[in-house]
């Protein structure tokens, strides 16, 4: 039976809670309601209110409390109801959690789960893809799975990791992607990209929901004889530069694709690294496809114009192929 992305995360949480009595969850409406996206559904029944803690509407206190609990040896997994509200707990994340190991050798092994992304007509405050704020903050690991398999394996790794991990779950994937998962306990390493699809002529470097857009385009172009390699970064920090560079050195052409806004997005970082470290291999400029520099609009025709999609990617692919 194929497992959906949302079930995969839930199973990952469940298994880790069964394995380690120090793991507990906190967040808004995660108990009896099972969370706004039902990720934690059923966990209250299984683990009780001591380990599934409904909090007041206080993102800063949620993050702060997770830090404090992690100092005491617990393994908190905090949910932001939407990634958009992570900005309400921002200071705790970037200044407290991110820096405590470096400053005074106090690790804060916590996980911050953040349902992100557009395509659900959520408008400017329920669609954000704001990972770039955190990839620019040393001390945070930023993880964004694209598949059910990775979602489960990475949430488990995140919980076991001894550093703070921001775990972005793409809302549009929760119930849309599914697959058969390996039996039993498995993890997917943080900091390792995956070659989602191999190819020879061009690399598309991407992550989260956009992996599926890239795969769609790769399949289409295959028929036209263009072999595209799709790199799913899975983790942005620490970045698996090796896998990216190996791919680009092979294909000599690269497009970086993400759903976040273009300017200042992580795509700039990737493009810059490719250019700096594989300059001699490049047979064309590194292109970027990302959302334009506006808030995420609500109305369907606007949101469609906003989000990167296969059609927009195809244009870039064709242009670069012809370069």
């Amino acid at each position, binding site marked *: 039976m194929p497992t959906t992305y949302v079930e995969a995360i839930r199973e990952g949480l469940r298994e880790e809670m069964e394995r380690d009595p120090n793991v507990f969850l906190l967040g808004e409406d995660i108990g009896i309601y099972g969370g706004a996206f039902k990720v934690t559904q059923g966990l209250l029944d299984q683990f009780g209110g001591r380990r599934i803690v409904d909090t*007041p509407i*206080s993102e800063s206190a949620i993050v702060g409390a997770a830090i404090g609990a992690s100092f005491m040896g617990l393994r908190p997994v905090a949910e932001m109801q939407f990634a958009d509200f992570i900005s309400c707990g921002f200071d705790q994340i970037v200044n407290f959690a991110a820096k405590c190991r470096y400053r005074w050798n106090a690790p804060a092994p916590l996980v911050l789960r953040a349902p992100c992304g557009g395509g659900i007509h959520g408008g400017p405050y329920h669609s954000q893809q704001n990972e770039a704020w955190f990839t620019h903050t040393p001390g945070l690991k930023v993880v964004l799975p694209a598949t059910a398999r990775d979602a489960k394996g990475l949430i488990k790794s995140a919980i076991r990791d001894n550093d703070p991990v921001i775990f972005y779950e793409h809302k549009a994937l929760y119930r849309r992607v599914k697959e058969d998962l390996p039996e039993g306990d498995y993890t997917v390493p943080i900091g390792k990209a995956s070659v989602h699809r191999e190819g020879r002529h061009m690399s598309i470097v991407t992550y989260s929901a956009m992996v599926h857009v890239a795969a769609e385009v790769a399949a289409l172009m295959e028929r036209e004889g263009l072999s595209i390699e799709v790199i799913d970064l899975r983790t942005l920090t620490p970045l698996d530069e090796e896998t990216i560079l190996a791919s680009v050195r092979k294909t000599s052409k690269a497009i970086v694709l993400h759903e976040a806004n273009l300017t200042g997005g992580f795509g700039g970082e990737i493009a810059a690294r490719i250019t700096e470290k594989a300059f001699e291999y490049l047979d064309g400029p590194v292109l970027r496809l990302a959302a334009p520099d506006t808030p995420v609009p609500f*109305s369907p025709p606007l949101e469609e114009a906003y989000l990167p999609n296969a059609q927009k990617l195809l244009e870039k692919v064709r242009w670069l192929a012809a370069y």
Partner: protein
Amino acid sequence: MTVAKLELSTDPALKLDADSSSGAKLSPRAELARRALYYMSLMREAEDRIERKLYRQGKILGGVYVGRGQEAIPVGAGLAARPEDVLFPSHRDLALYFMRGISLREVFAQYMGRAAGLTRGRDGNMHMGDLRKRIVAIISAMAASVPVAAGAAMALKYQGKDDVVFVFFGDGATSRGDWHEGINLAAVQKAPLVLLCNNNQYAYSTPLDKQMACANVADRAPGYGIPAEIADGNDPLAVYDACERAAAHARSGNGPYLIECKTFRMTGHSAHDPADYVPKELFELWEQRCPIRRVERRLLDEGWDSPAAIEAVHARVRREIDEAIEWAENSPYPDPSELLDGVFERKES
């Protein structure tokens, strides 16, 4: 920048008196009750259509939040606010928009993501505002409006005006740091700010006692050195009276004033939430306190209106809404070519 030209409200409900069957001059209290009935009915009916029809028909997308059973709060406050006062609605205060003269057409267009909505499709549902009408759009982050309202109130004082700001929020929103910072700043600055809490006893699925360890939101006021009172949130006239006291306090330079309206959320948190976690008895209990039925009874008991006149109000509301929905459904979506406009000011060149 030229400051938004004010287009202050011509209250549509004022027309009610003219329409009224009885030619006799009504007492001010009766007039208030009538206007309250009209706006509460308008809000109830508009939201019922939104939540129970248009949303289920897939004509409205995204999150849909309604204020069923809580209409007395925006309506009571809206009646007390002067046109120059600045309103910061929260997500269960739809009536305020109508009371500021924003049309049903614009509101339905907004909910349907059409170009004619107040945000031209850029944001959804109750995330709308119009500076010309002195009504400020909420953002999603609960209580984020409170510091902004504090700043608006500081500006009114700076400008030497005796207008006040009304800011609305739920019980759950009071847990947020912004709520605390905004009230504290306004209190220190003695800014003219009326704070209206819709205490509907739930925040999404979270009941009050998991949100706060004090009995009343009003218990927080002494920590800011400001007065507070608890009002019957299901009686628009009680809310109105409290707002009159609060606004008088604020207008006289005494700073903020907190009103906690006790009420109940007669729905799930949003249109997709069946609210299984709420004990059924609570819905039954509070159904009997419906603010619309209540004001109707008052109108009848006091002899201010006949049953027929009341029915006429509801009928007018339904008519207006039918018309507006039809108009909105036929209005165009925004053009994708506008996507990039208005992130920054467009410079004339």
